[in-house]
């Protein structure tokens, strides 16, 4: 999507400690604008492809675009606005995925985010294999913008007991290797009131200080969001999210004047079309 992009984001754990060098300077609002541009493009693709339904016997073409999270966080620091969105285009077997997520502080002009563009292939009834690129970006007013690119190899699918699981390995353009695991679950309390627990953890092989990443076990992110499906496609929610950094990652955070642990309340909207 042409975006330079951001870092292993963990909701609420946004911090970029030491930014050195005189890199490109991308004002946060420009970054936000380009993110919005990416969504807009996906949106256009969505509507453009809407009538492209195949006749029987021809491969189907479909699309899906979802903001799993679009939320405002309440904490004692920066009250971030964050987004986690995915889109796919394609048939039953082969799809192109776009995953965009990020976070912008509402008190400081600071933004960070990432985008992944992936080819995805159905390899088992509940699993697709995904391969592609990811770009990260961190931008703050008055500081140089940091970016990095990765190769992505991952799978996404449904584990027994209905856990949506998304493990992925990332290899950055500088050779840094990291691993991320995400799992979410839809717990139906009623037909429309749905609790949405989520889990994420990041592990890195190398230290990447510009992105606040320490070698080893980085962090754990736990969320619990309670949404009400006014329609299948449209669910406002409230919840909490908690991020805990460990080991070297925690040290990097503390060195940057942050805490290793971050708890915030969230309110947002989950929607798709």
């Amino acid at each position, binding site marked *: 999507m042409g975006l330079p992009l951001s870092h292993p984001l963990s909701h609420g754990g946004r911090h970029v400690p030491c930014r050195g060098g005189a890199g490109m300077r991308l004002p946060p609002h420009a970054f936000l604008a380009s993110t919005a541009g990416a969504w807009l493009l996906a949106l256009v693709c969505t509507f453009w492809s809407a009538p492209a339904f195949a006749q029987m016997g021809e491969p189907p073409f479909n699309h899906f675009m979802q903001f799993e999270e679009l939320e405002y966080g309440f904490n004692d620091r920066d009250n971030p606005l964050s987004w986690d969105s995915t889109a796919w285009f394609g048939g039953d077997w082969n799809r192109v995925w776009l995953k965009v997520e990020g976070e912008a502080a509402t008190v400081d002009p600071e933004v960070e985010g990432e985008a992944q563009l992936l080819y995805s292939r159905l390899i088992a009834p509940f699993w697709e294999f995904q391969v592609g690129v990811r770009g990260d970006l961190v931008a703050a007013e008055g500081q140089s913008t940091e970016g990095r690119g990765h190769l992505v190899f991952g799978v996404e699918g449904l584990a027994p007991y209905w856990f949506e699981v998304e493990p992925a390995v990332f290899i950055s353009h500088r050779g840094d290797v990291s691993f991320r695991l995400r799992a979410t679950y839809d717990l*139906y309390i009623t*037909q429309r009131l749905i609790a949405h627990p989520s889990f994420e953890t990041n592990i890195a092989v190398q230290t990447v200080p510009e992105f606040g990443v320490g070698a080893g076990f980085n962090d754990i992110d736990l969320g619990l969001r309670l949404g009400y499906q006014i329609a299948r496609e449209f669910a406002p929610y409230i919840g909490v999210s908690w991020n805990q950094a460990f080991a070297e990652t925690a040290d990097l955070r503390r060195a940057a004047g942050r805490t290793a642990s971050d708890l915030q309340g969230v309110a947002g909207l989950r929607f798709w079309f």
Partner: protein
Amino acid sequence: MSRSHDNHDRRGLTRRGFLANTGRATAAVLLGRFVTGCATTGVLAAPRRRLSVVDGRTIDLHIAETRLAVAGQSAVATTINGGIPGPEIRLREGQDVTLRVSNALDEDTSIHWHGLLVPPGMDGVPGVSFPGIPPATTFEYRFPVRQSGTYWYHSHSGFQEQTGIYGPIVIEPREPEPYNYQREFTIVLSDWTFENPHRVLANLKRYGGYYNFQRRTLANLADEPPGALANRFSWARMRMDATDIADVTGATYTFLMNGLSPDENWRGVFEPGERLRLRFINASAATYFDVRIPGLPMQVIQADGMPVVPVETDEFRLAIAETLDVLVEPTGAAHTIFAEAMDRSGHARGTLATDPHATAPVPGRRPRPLLTMADMGMDHSNMQGMDNGGAAGGDHGPAHQNTPSEEHSGMSGMDHSHASGMDEMAAACSENLDVVARHDGDGHGAGNAMVAETARSRISEPGVGLGQDGWRVLTYSQLRRATPGEDSQPVTRTIELHLTGNMERYMWSFDGEQYHRDMPDIVLHYGERVRFVLINDTMMAHPIHLHGMFFELDVGACERNPLKHTVNVQPAERTSFVVTAQEVGRWAFHCHILYHMEAGMFRVVEVRV
């Protein structure tokens, strides 16, 4: 033996409905995506209270987009001669008929005569039997009418069947029938959505449970019997949903009886003392109906247009595309015809009454059923029992024996071997119904999410959610052909096909392979008798329809096996039927859940000379 038709009652009444003003402007257009069925202002044709009738040697059917009222709300439908359903086509066995179908849509259309024995070029499946009917053209279907009974017709193009292109066909027999009734009613059951069916399919592709608002939740855990939690865990472990009874539900559907919603209440008016023949047709795109007339037993006389030995019942499940004729003898002044959707998410309803304004109580819908482990093919204890009950263990011939490659070709021959140890007479023409098919290692690839470890005949089971109410429910095992079949040629080949699907991605198929244009046909040779074994690996029931020929559904009754054009295959069921390949041509063979067919559960059977 005497009867008089009620045709005078039915003819000449094709008048257009009155114009009715549904009033009420609404600005909810923008919300239309989320809130379906917003009424819009307009002067609309009210639905007809009666089916119109067309007959004769030449019949004109005009297909067009029409704005009309469905359940009192404005709808844009594709219609035949302006209404939903289309007119009743009334034919006589032995006549020749010309049906001129003109297309005023801006896309191709087609009409398929469901259950009729017609030359292949007249069967009306675009891409299989003819090219389709382009916009602004008229296609003439011509064929001799070789049979009698209750059938129906529908578009075989895109989703036009969902949006209104369907109607009944009634063919009078050449010889009088041995039934005693004074009046008849054709009852077309169907489902209507105000959503664009393309969107319905897209929704299902994104989220298979989109229309299921009857799932198991924390809140309804308490309503379930002890042990429910463990049961939930075992379903969750399989990533299957025990409430996935129907894909498209009352959440979007309005269920119709002869085009009328439950509130509009279709009425059939009769004179006291009359016996009635009811011709039920399930013309739904995706809804199985459980039909009963509380307080009135029904005598089943024909199934899929073919006479059966009369059997009395209180309720029957009508799979999509099936027809069933029953006789009833009303005892009261009004009786409700109640047709519940299989998943209990809604119902269609009508009234039989001696007074055009009378109504009868409408029963409540039963709670939505849950699939059981047997529907997953995992009921080992039961299987064990079946094994022991059946003859000789070990090598049950028709069980799943062929190699995966044979299976995927879908047409390679396999020796027809009979279950051993059974009565020789039975073995010669019917299979041992106790056969338990054990699945081999082939999971049919990523297009198939579940494999029933074991599949067995379920023809004597009424189906999920039925049979626990203290009244009789019809099963296939009760159907017997009225006149014994004469075809005594041996069955020479077995073709085994697995019904497969992946609910998460809404992919449906045979043997894990979704239909595509260059898929090879399943080839039969003219005159041969072939046994088709269908093994349902999925947890959903599928109504499987063969065009062009009737098949003998094996209910273990040999020459009395009923003739059908559509068979409902229950979850984890092994069903078999025999086809005599007597109609040369290419014939569609598919699941009649419209969305399953569109998603790939379709093949072509070709009879070659």
